[in-house]
Structure formats: structure tokens, C-alpha cells
């Protein structure tokens, strides 16, 4: 077998150098059947179609020959075995189908330098790792790198030279010795002095990885051992045990939960992924990932911490369902060449030991270990009984079958739940009836104990007097009400108006001011308001807040105006017709006039359809001299809040004004409403 390995590496060399004498004829690449398509060495030199036909014929021939022997096998197994055989014979096939390579096999003893070349050229993975090493640990300097590769080189050459002479166990021991050696070297020599402890551990890991990846093809499933046979045996064993399900193993893996199913598949994927990894620690990482998924599955199914009592059966279940390729070889490879310290302890070691346990359990599985009668076990093993579970069908059978099984178990579950619900319903009905009776009894007993006797009504004298007094007080209160409740009324009206006429801006500033009465109910700051500049008025925080309200109220409208915080300030205080009741009147809004009007100042206006637009000056006059046609009624006063009257009424929508009116004259810009 080492010969094969050599030859294989030579093959890479040949492709790399492309010597003309080794060129393959186009005809050699075509299908053997001569159908014109290209053939493939994997398919015995046939093209895919011809190969399938060929295989069908072969299978039929075989089936005729060994009719009874196939019966015991579970369907699909022969196909699998075929696949496996192909895999293992791959190397041979390559050599057979391409006779050119046979010549090169004579070079096998040409000495060490050649082998060095092989080692490096045959391993694109190793090259990748070398680049990785430089990028990761290049910062630690040339010395570290040089030393690392020196050790790697001495390790690989040493192992390589001993490969043919020593049994694999000795080589494994040697590898362990080298790991220790390098570990000591890293921890004690000056070269690595500057390297931090973490990086030292990483370096050790990397050493192992690099060496093992370089030597993988020689050390994994070495020809001197019967690992491959063991693989096949365990594969077949697992195949035969495919009927074992979670119940047999006493583990509670729910079959219908989607999360659990996903986790189980994740676990299986991780376990299957082990074969594709090369370094022992990578394989171990796969095992750890797999086991962690198993733990998650169990946590999902039962909740709480997972003990080994539950974990091991679940792992066995996963291994049985996954049936990983070359399981035994992988386990042996890891056992031999993984750094002992990692395998003996730590999480990875624990999970790996569990995996070994699972495999050994599967190997030695008997009827007893599944707690079933010997007869039944044998019947299962012979294929006389077949059990179809959801898992089984998911992993082996077709999708439809799988769904069928899942639905069946789901239905079973549901019917169970229905019966329990029905039972509970009955119980509940009974309980209700019982409760009803009980209550009835209780009520009757209570009634009997304390019979209801209606006696003639009596009113004590002093109580009557009190009542008359209360009536007197009530009348008093009503008299005072108009004054005391005035403000509250206003508030209410204001609120109503606000609610009804969201689209129209109505703010009352002065309506209440005519009425000295109302003033009393308003802010004491009113006095200072008279004659104050607009700015002063702005400083009233509440008026500012209410600007915001104005804005939002009108934002949906098309009317345009600019927000002007001004308030009228003529001492006479012309009443503002812009009262909340305006909505019911023809007047909707009256703009406010600023005290100092600048020529280009844009005043708010409201509805374009009410065309009475005037110049600012006119407006000012009007606003100052003309009384508002509608006098606000005291009772109709309304405001937003306590300070409602202070709120300047500024109908405003900015955008339109800017676009339509700004271009027009000032007179148009500043507006007022006539009534």
C-alpha cells in the first residue's frame, strides 16, 4: 500500500510537469461503449449513462446468482456496499484505467530526496497550512518560524522513514513523543521566550495539525492494519441495526418536534463531517459539535441538565442513524495520533470516550442490552420484522413515507390529547354540577338560618332635618355655580371644538378677555400681557407649546400660512373673532397682526377661497379699529387649557405659502379675512 501512496503522489507530479510522453489520448477519455461521451475512471471508463446500464446488468446477474443471500439483507444495503467498494478500490482503478502510471511505480525506491519532494508536492493542504502559519504566527519572528518548520520536517521525515518498518502503534507512540518534545521545546527554549502562553498552546496545536495533515494519507487507515475491514464490519452492523429506534434505547427523543429534528440532523451532519477532516483535532471538534447538539436535543426533550444516563443512549441513537463512513478508521486515527493530553482530559476527551463507548455498544449489542426477547431481536436482525419509525423513514426511506410516519405519530399524539381533553371536560362538567348543588345547598341553609323579614320602614327624626339642610346647601351651590363653573365649562367647549374641527385652526386668544369675569379665571400673568411685546408673550412657555399643536393640526391641510407668534397688543383688545365657535359660523379664522410689521412679512391666512386679502397695513388698521363682527360669548368661550387664551392663533401650513404666495405681491402674502 505505501507503494500506492507513492504512486499517487507521483500522479500529482506528472500533472504538474506535463511531460509530453505521458499525455493521454483523447480516445482514452471516451466512454468504453463508444457512445461518444466522455468516460470516467470512477465509472469503469464508461460514461454516466452506459455505466448505469452496465451496473444494472451486473446487479441483475448477481441477483440471479445469489438469490437467497440477498434476501436477508435490508434493501439498499447492497447498493451501499457497492459504493463503499468503489471508494476503497479507487486507487487501484486509477492505476488500471491509466496504464501510463504503471511505469512510474518502479521509482519507488529512489531514495530520500524524492520522498521529500513527494511530501510537499502531494499535499496542497499542507501548503495552505504553511501559508496560514505564516499569516498567523509570522509576527513572532523568523526564529519561531524556522524552528517550527525544522521540527515539522524532522517529525515527518522520521515518521515517514519508519512507516514501513514499524507497526502503527509504535508510530503512534513516536508521534506522541514528538508532540511532547515540541511542547517542551516551546515552553523552555529561548526561541519561544517572547511568545505568549496562549500562542504557545496554539503553536502546539498547529504543530500537530500541520504534521498530521502532511502525513494524513499514510497514517489514516494505514495498509498495515485491518482498519478498513473493521470499518466495513461496523458499517454492516449499523445497517443491520437500522431498526433500532429511540424506544429501544430508552431515550426520549421526540419524533415530531421540528426543532428536535433539526438538532438531530445537525448532530448527524457533524458526525458525518468527521471523515472529511484531516487533522485529529478537527475530527475531535466534529465529535464535540455532534455531542453538543445531542445535549441540546436532550435539553429540548426533557429540559434541565443532561446526565450521562441519558446522553449515552442518545449518542448511540445518533451514531446508529448517521452510520458515518469509515467510523472505525477515524476513531483509531484519532486515538493514535491525537495528542494524548487532549484525548485524556477535557471536554473533547470526554465526548470522544462517549463516542467510543457508543461504538463499542453497537458492536456488542445483544437482545439483552435492548431489553427485548432474543427471538424478537433475531427476527429484527433477519429482517422478518421491520419497524418503521419517523426517524427511520426520514433517514432511509423516501420523503413521502417520512411524512406519512410523522403524520401518523402526530395523529397518535393528537388523539391522545383529544381523549385527555374529553376526559377533562367531563370531569369539569361534573365538577360544575357538583359545585352548583353545593352552592344551592349552602344558599338554602343560609336562608333557613337567617330568614328575610321585611319590617316597616322607619326614618329617624334627626335624619330628616339633616336632609333639609343638605337641600339648602345645594341651592346655594347652584347659585354660585355660574361663576365657579364658568371656566370648567369653557374648557369643555374648547375641547369639544378641538375635537370636531381638527382641520381648521381655531384658537381663541381674546374672546375671553372682553369679559372681565373670565379674566379672573385666567392666568394672573394677564396684566403683564397687556402692552407687552410679542417676544415677551412668547416667553410664556405655554404659548410656545401650543404653537406646536397648531402646526400639527394644520399640517394635513392645504391652507398656507406662516407661523407667527405675534399677538395682538393694542390696549383696546379688539376681540378676536377667531373663536372656537368659528367653525359653526362663517368666520373660520382671523389672522393676527404683528405689532411691527415688516414690509415683506408674511402673515398667516387661512382659506384661499375666502378671497379677502388685504395689505398688512390695511389689516393692521382693521384689526386695530374694527371690532370683530362676532362677539365671543362668554359662555362660548373655549380654550385648550388654562392658558388657552394666550395661544396665538396661527393657521399655518408652510409649503404652499412659499410656493404660491411668495411669488405674489406682499398684499397677497399678508392676509385677513373679512366676514
Amino acid at each position: 500500500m505505501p507503494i500506492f501512496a507513492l504512486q499517487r503522489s507521483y500522479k500529482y507530479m506528472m500533472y504538474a510537469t506535463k511531460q509530453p510522453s505521458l499525455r493521454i489520448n483523447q480516445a482514452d477519455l471516451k466512454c468504453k461503449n463508444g457512445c461518444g461521451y466522455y468516460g470516467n475512471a470512477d465509472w469503469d471508463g464508461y460514461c454516466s449513462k452506459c455505466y448505469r446500464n452496465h451496473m444494472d446488468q451486473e446487479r441483475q446477474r448477481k441477483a440471479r446468482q445469489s438469490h437467497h443471500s440477498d434476501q436477508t439483507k435490508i434493501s439498499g444495503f447492497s447498493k451501499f456496499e457497492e459504493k463503499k467498494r468503489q471508494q476503497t478500490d479507487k486507487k487501484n482503478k486509477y492505476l488500471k484505467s491509466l496504464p501510463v502510471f504503471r511505469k512510474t511505480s518502479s521509482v519507488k525506491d529512489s531514495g530520500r530526496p524524492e520522498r521529500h519532494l513527494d511530501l510537499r508536492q502531494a499535499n496542497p493542504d499542507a501548503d495552505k497550512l504553511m501559508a496560514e502559519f505564516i499569516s498567523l504566527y509570522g509576527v513572532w519572528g523568523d526564529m519561531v518560524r524556522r524552528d517550527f518548520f525544522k521540527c515539522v520536517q524532522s517529525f515527518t521525515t522520521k515518521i515517514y522513514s519508519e512507516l514501513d518498518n514499524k507497526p502503527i502503534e509504535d508510530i503512534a507512540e513516536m508521534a506522541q513523543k514528538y508532540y511532547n518534545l515540541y511542547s517542551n521545546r516551546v515552553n523552555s527554549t529561548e526561541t519561544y521566550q517572547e511568545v505568549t502562553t496562549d500562542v504557545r498552546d496554539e503553536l502546539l496545536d498547529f504543530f500537530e495539525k500541520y504534521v498530521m495533515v502532511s502525513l494524513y494519507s499514510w497514517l489514516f487507515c494505514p495498509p498495515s492494519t485491518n482498519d478498513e475491514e473493521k470499518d466495513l464490519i461496523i458499517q454492516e452492523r449499523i445497517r443491520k441495526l437500522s431498526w433500532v429506534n429511540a424506544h429501544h434505547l430508552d431515550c426520549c427523543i421526540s419524533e415530531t418536534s421540528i426543532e428536535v429534528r433539526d438538532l438531530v440532523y445537525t448532530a448527524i451532519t457533524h458526525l458525518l463531517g468527521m471523515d472529511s477532516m484531516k487533522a485529529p483535532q478537527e475530527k475531535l471538534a466534529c465529535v464535540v459539535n455532534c455531542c453538543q447538539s445531542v445535549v441540546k436535543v436532550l435539553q429540548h426533550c426533557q429540559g434541565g441538565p443532561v446526565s450521562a444516563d441519558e446522553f449515552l443512549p442518545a449518542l448511540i441513537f445518533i451514531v446508529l442513524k448517521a452510520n458515518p463512513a469509515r467510523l472505525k478508521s477515524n476513531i483509531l486515527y484519532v486515538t493514535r495520533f491525537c495528542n494524548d493530553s487532549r484525548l485524556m482530559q477535557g471536554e473533547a476527551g470526554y465526548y470522544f470516550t462517549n463516542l467510543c463507548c457508543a461504538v463499542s455498544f453497537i458492536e456488542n449489542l445483544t437482545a439483552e442490552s435492548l431489553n427485548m426477547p432474543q427471538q424478537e431481536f433475531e427476527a429484527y436482525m433477519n429482517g422478518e420484522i421491520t419497524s418503521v419509525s419517523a426517524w427511520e423513514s426520514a433517514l432511509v426511506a423516501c420523503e413521502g413515507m417520512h411524512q406519512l410516519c410523522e403524520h401518523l405519530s402526530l395523529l397518535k399524539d393528537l388523539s391522545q390529547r383529544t381523549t385527555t381533553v374529553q376526559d377533562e371536560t367531563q370531569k369539569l362538567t361534573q365538577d360544575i354540577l357538583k359545585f352548583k348543588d353545593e352552592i344551592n345547598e349552602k344558599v338554602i341553609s343560609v336562608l333557613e338560618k337567617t330568614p328575610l323579614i321585611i319590617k316597616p320602614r322607619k326614618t329617624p327624626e334627626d335624619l330628616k332635618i339633616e336632609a333639609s339642610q343638605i337641600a339648602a346647601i345645594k341651592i346655594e351651590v347652584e347659585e354660585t355655580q355660574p361663576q365657579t363653573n364658568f371656566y370648567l365649562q369653557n374648557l369643555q367647549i374648547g375641547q369639544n371644538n378641538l375635537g370636531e374641527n381638527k382641520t381648521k385652526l381655531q384658537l381663541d386668544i381674546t374672546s375671553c378677555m372682553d369679559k372681565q369675569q373670565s379674566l379672573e379665571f385666567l392666568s394672573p400673568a394677564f396684566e403683564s400681557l397687556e402692552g407687552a411685546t410679542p417676544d415677551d408673550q412668547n416667553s410664556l412657555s405655554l404659548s410656545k407649546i401650543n404653537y406646536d399643536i397648531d402646526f400639527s393640526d394644520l399640517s394635513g391641510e392645504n391652507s398656507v400660512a406662516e407661523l407667527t407668534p405675534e399677538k395682538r397688543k393694542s390696549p383696546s383688545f379688539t376681540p378676536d373673532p377667531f373663536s372656537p365657535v368659528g367653525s359653526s359660523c362663517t368666520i373660520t379664522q382671523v389672522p393676527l397682526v404683528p405689532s411691527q410689521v415688516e414690509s415683506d412679512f408674511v402673515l398667516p391666512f387661512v382659506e384661499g377661497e375666502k378671497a379677502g386679502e388685504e395689505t398688512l397695513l390695511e389689516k393692521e388698521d382693521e384689526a386695530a379699529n374694527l371690532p370683530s363682527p362676532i362677539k365671543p360669548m362668554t359662555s362660548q368661550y373655549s380654550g385648550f387649557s388654562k392658558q388657552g387664551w394666550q395661544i396665538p392663533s396661527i393657521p399655518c401650513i408652510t409649503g404652499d405659502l412659499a410656493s404660491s404666495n411668495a411669488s405674489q405681491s406682499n398684499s397677497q402674502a399678508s392676509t385677513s379675512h373679512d366676514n
Partner: protein
Amino acid sequence: MKTIVGKVVVLGHQGVGKTSTVIRYVENSFTHHITPTVGASFFSCKILIDDITVKLQIWDTAGQERFKAMAPMFYRNANAALIVFDITSQQSFESMQGWVVELQRNVESPMVLCVVGNKIDLSKNREVTRDEAIQYARSIGASYHECSAMQDQGVGVVFDDVARGLIRLFGNTTDHNLKVYDSENIDNIMASSSELEATDTGKEETVNLSIRSIAHGNTVKPKCC
């Protein structure tokens, strides 16, 4: 300061509370040392005793009868064994004795043994007397503790005792599997290391060359003045 790493296997019949005991201990006192996989059956924790850090790696095992044959895989290279039984079950006590026989048959290297009677909160249903258990523990050279994982009684003492046992074991013997970081076989390896370098010097040069060319893409030219 020394660091001792010890592997502790927890053995016992199914349902005696192996996992509960371990989880109780790990949760209680070493919250910040637990490996992130709480809920799994593997834990590692550190105990500091007299200036010596003892790192315990606790391996939980499956207690079912059918997995008994696999147990040797777990306690291979173990430094300590916690053998747990349920004081309310005579059967668990007897099956524990079976575990011990197996253990003694399969493990040659010295080991700290610790018999633990769990579930003392249920002592009214007690089937195994304390004296009986102590007597047995003595006969196999083990220490005996009683605890209740549920009510958190005496769990800490058990592991403390194991840690002290490991320290004693390390002090007494030289041939053990304990990982101690000032190991004495360094000399051995150093010797072989120098030997190795001597034989392989011829090859080192070529390797270094090739590495340099990979690292820099081309050979480094000497700078001129």
C-alpha cells in the same frame, strides 16, 4: 504554585443522583469556572487548597446496567472515582460494590476512591446504615461521605476531600497519571531532543530556505551601505 489536573469519574447505579451531585457542586461554588456547556455531563472546576490549584475534570458516566461493560473506557487514566449510591436503596449499594470490583480489576495505578451516600434528605426511608457504608468504604480504602444533592448538604465536602486526596496521591507516588506542570521527565525529553537535532541538521537548511522563499516571495537582498 503547583497545578494538579485530575480526572474524576463519577460511577454509580442509574438514578442515584450522580449528575445532580456534580451539578449541585459546580453550580454552587464555582459558577465562574464552569465550562460553558452546563447541562452536559462534563465539568471542569478549580479548587485552591494550601497554595495548590487542583483542577478537577469531572466525567459523568451512564449508570445503566447495559453500559457497565463500557465503563473501563471512562475510568481509564482517571485519578479519582466518586462512587455514588442511594442510601434509600439497598440495591444501589450492592450494585455500587460491583462497580468497585470492576474498577479495582481494571485500574492498576493508584486512585482516590470516595464513596458517597446520596439522598440523606430521605433518611426516613433509609435502607443502608451509615455504619455499614463506612465499614465497606474502609474495606476498599475509600473515604465515606453522606450528602444530599437536593438539599445541598455536604456536597462541597465530598469534592474537597477528592481534591485533598489528589494532592496526597501526588505527594506519595511518582508513577501516576496526574498532570503536574513541573514534571520530572523533562530531562528525558530534552535528551532526545538534542539527539534529534544532531541527526537532522542536514535537512534543516533546505527547509529554512524553502520557508523563507514562501514567506517573502523572493530572497532577501542584503542592503547596500
